[in-house]
């Protein structure tokens, strides 16, 4: 097989798998609940393997047996280390959708192991982290020095119906964990989900933003500090109705990981919430729009300038089930293809801003319906 998708039964895994299969690749679909991807499994190019990432040994054996050279990890970010270890054991190159701050730091510690085995692990290959990192690298490359980077996402829908925007576990983690920001060259903790005011976003309009934890703060500093980078700030923009709903769930205890006893059985509220929310159907005609944005402040020829990058995505025809998440699941698949074609090359552990050639990557995104802008001009 060409690729293995870990967490193929989840929202992003399903998108990545569909993309790869429709592009003629053979794919091993790894997960625990095949019923959620029944139609994908029917495809001749696909094979399903029951995989529990808690069991590294078995996951490695499954991966090795598949013959795939590249694994796309689309499972919850809490499983990233396990997935990387399984890939190390089985000898596969690795891509994932990001590990926020703490997990990303832990993942870099496997750098030497990956190098030793002549393997590559590319961390954070979705929309953000992912597209945002490559856009930042592109902007940084146009400057002599960089002082400040602000980035994030903003999305909206054409209806005010609540649809789970992305992994509810990730959202809860992002909104409740005090984020790490880079301020004056030092990492600092900020207040969880602090309001950052209203900003106008390309293709989205005005929206409230919140400071949340994200992996780019760590990786941008790692790769751009030699350019003088001293401040990094990550901001999330949710439509008000969606943010209110998620906030209500968090405030009322529905995101708690502490098990409670109901009728003599233990239940974790977050597991219950996740399962109930899974049943929510997208209304007919529901569409999402998203702006992944980066603002880089720096100097060129001793002049202070700001470069603004935007990647606009929306619900695509044939991908209605994915909403604007298509920019995450499809991006990891695009990067996996580029790695397979050796357009992306590397050894050890890296993030997209250090390994993905921007223009080739942007071309691929544009080919699939995304729009890229630099300072409001289409790239």
């Amino acid at each position, binding site marked *: 097989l060409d690729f293995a998708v870990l967490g193929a039964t989840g929202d992003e895994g399903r998108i990545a798998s569909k993309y790869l299969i429709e592009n003629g690749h053979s794919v091993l679909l790894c997960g625990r609940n095949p019923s959620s991807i029944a139609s994908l499994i029917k495809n001749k190019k696909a094979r399903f393997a029951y995989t529990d990432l808690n069991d590294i040994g078995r996951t490695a054996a499954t991966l090795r047996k598949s013959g795939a050279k590249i694994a796309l990890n689309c499972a919850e970010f809490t499983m990233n280390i396990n997935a990387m270890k399984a890939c190390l054991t089985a000898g596969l190159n690795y891509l994932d959708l990001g590990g926020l701050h703490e997990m990303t730091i832990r993942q870099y510690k496997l750098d030497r192991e990956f190098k030793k085995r002549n393997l590559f692990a590319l961390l954070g290959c979705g929309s953000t982290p992912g597209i945002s990192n490559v856009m930042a690298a592109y902007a940084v490359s146009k400057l002599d020095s960089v002082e400040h980077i602000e980035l994030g996402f903003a999305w909206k829908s054409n209806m005010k119906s*609540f649809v789970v925007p992305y992994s509810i576990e990730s959202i809860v983690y992002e909104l409740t964990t005090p984020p790490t920001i880079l301020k004056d060259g030092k990492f600092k903790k900020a207040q969880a989900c602090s309001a950052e005011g209203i900003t106008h976003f390309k293709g989205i309009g005005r929206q409230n933003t919140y400071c949340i934890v994200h992996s780019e703060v760590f990786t941008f500093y790692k790769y751009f500090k030699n350019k003088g980078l001293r401040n990094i700030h990550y901001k999330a923009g949710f439509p008000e109705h969606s943010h*209110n*709903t998620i906030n*209500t*769930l968090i*405030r*009322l*205890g*529905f995101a*708690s990981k502490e098990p*409670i*006893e*109901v*009728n003599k*059985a233990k*239940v974790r*509220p977050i*597991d*219950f*919430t996740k*399962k*109930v*929310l899974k*049943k*929510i159907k997208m209304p007919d005609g529901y569409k999402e729009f998203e702006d992944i944005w980066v603002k880089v402040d720096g100097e060129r020829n001793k002049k202070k300038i700001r470069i603004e990058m935007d990647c606009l995505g929306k619900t695509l025809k044939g991908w209605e089930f994915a909403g604007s998440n298509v920019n995450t699941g499809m991006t990891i698949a695009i990067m996996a293809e580029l790695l397979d074609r050796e357009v992306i090359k590397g050894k050890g552990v890296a993030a997209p801003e250090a390994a993905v050639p921007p223009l080739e990557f942007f071309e691929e995104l544009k080919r699939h319906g995304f729009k890229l802008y630099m300072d409001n001009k289409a790239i």
Partner: protein
Amino acid sequence: MMRYLILGGYGAMGKIIVKDLFETTGKDDEIIVAGRNINEAKRLARPYKAKRVKAAYADVGNIESLTRAIGRAGIVIHAVHHEFNINVMKACLKTNSHYIDLGGLYHYTKEQLKLHKNFERKGLTAVIGMGAAPGITNVLAKHASKDLDKVDSIDIRLGSKDFSTYKRESPLSNTYSVQTLLEEFSWKPAVFINGKAKFIEPMSGREKYKFPNPVGLQKPQYTIHSEIATLPYTLKAENVTFKIAFDDDFFNKIKTLRDLGLTSNDKTMGKETKDIEITTEILKRLPKALPRISRGYEIIRVIVRGKKDSKQTEIIADAHVKAENELIDKDTGVPPSITAKMIADRKITKRGVFPPEEIIPIEEFIGELGKRNIYIRKYQKNKQR
């Protein structure tokens, strides 16, 4: 000597009932705080420093346990959830005890009324739905209807305002049972229209309504309530509705949970447990509000329209409930205590199962409420048609 047994005596309503009984009953009377958590029961009984306040184990889900706990009790006040009403009534029949509860959310009320003959035969009294609403509402409806020759409609509206200051606020400002609240928000409310009971959409009919000061403008909505199960028949009203107001923040939070499917009867986590049960448990664990100064005002309004001397007439009966350093829910805890005392003092002697409007001596009841800072105002609005 009378023996009063309060099931759920350490719960939110039970606590108020125990306190009121302690303050109003005689030195020879016994007050038994009963429930499944004997330690909680003991903890509540202890500060009264009186031998006549006791604790006892009782499981309302188990008739045997109940029968044992009630023993030779004279009057049982049932302040646990309404799904156990029938159980407790059966245990009262076995032990020859009178019975009072706080309501049956329409459906249970209908079942309870079927036990009328059983109570009558045994020479026992059951007063069902004897809190604030149902309870005071039913008595007010009767009180207002007395001024009319014929009743056409009864509309009940409840509104309250919290003037407390808090050391810590709760993420969900509910004052009564979370389970009852979620049921009120997700079960279809009954309304009685043109002589027929009809079930409408949960949380519907929410619109602005101006209560007298200091409650003011509120947005009452239909909820399932037991008044609709009795008033159309006892007062012969063609139309009966019940609406209660919740503040926007509270309404939106519960609506969010309901809209997301978290209060349904589905069994998402397996065969044993309904989603609404898990949600109830999650909400029960929320930190409680810690008031610095507890202050609240509630208005229970009953609007009765009908004919008097062949003229279309509207009578409004309001209960003004003022709470200063006490819980606003005293209006739910006080009525069963007053009623129990009335049964003990033989001021209530009818035997069988009755809703409040059929059995409570109105003037005396209003007098007792007044002693507890709950005042009734009744006035007439004349409308020529």
